[in-house]
């Protein structure tokens, strides 16, 4: 069973508008969340993260919102640019790995964002 779900495989947005990428999780023990961006033929790159003690974290055009009661987080990109076109992965730290502080991540399947000029 998926513990981290990105239910939209793809999203298309016009340049300059807002992109909203969604992620749901199943385990209320998850307390740290990350977003990664991946271009074709490259490794994923870390984008932004949020701890469960916050409900919002902002970095430039990127904002992540966390709704713990709904077990839902979202990544907002404003304004969207064609260079933002990539696959976005939501991830969380596996609490079962905390005992050894291994920091293992559990990833969603990704959402492919296309920003059209």
């Amino acid at each position, binding site marked *: 069973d998926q513990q981290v779900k990105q239910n939209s495989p793809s999203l298309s947005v016009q340049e300059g508008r807002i992109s909203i990428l969604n992620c749901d999780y199943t385990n209320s023990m998850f307390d740290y969340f990350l977003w*990664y961006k991946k271009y074709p033929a*490259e*490794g994923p790159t870390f984008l932004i*993260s949020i701890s469960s003690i916050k409900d919002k974290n902002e970095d430039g055009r990127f904002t992540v919102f966390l709704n713990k009661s709904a077990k839902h987080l979202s990544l907002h990109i404003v304004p969207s640019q064609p260079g933002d076109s990539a696959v976005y*992965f939501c991830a969380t730290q596996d609490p079962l790995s905390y005992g050894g502080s*291994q*920091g293992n*991540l559990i*990833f969603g*399947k990704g959402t492919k964002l296309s920003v059209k000029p």
Partner: protein
Amino acid sequence: DAGITQSPRHKVTETGTPVTLRCHQTENHRYMYWYRQDPGHGLRLIHYSYGVKDTDKGEVSDGYSVSRSKTEDFLLTLESATSSQTSVYFCAIRQTYEQYFGPGTRLTVT
């Protein structure tokens, strides 16, 4: 750039042959990880290491082994490659709470 390189970047091999992928890091990170990425599956953890000679299994470890004899190198071995192991393999290091990834190795098993 977390100073991670992977080799080879591309490899085509035949079913039943052994394959070793190498991950090299230059910044002395303790934790290293191997993932595979497949369409419809996202990134899945194969094995990880928390120090020299200290390794453990991830979600999809069957058919894979790893070794870490030096801090800077983490090797992933497919003892007898199968077509189901055709994938893109990513190595990562951990820095505080985030992981940083290498450029990937595209492996095709024919």
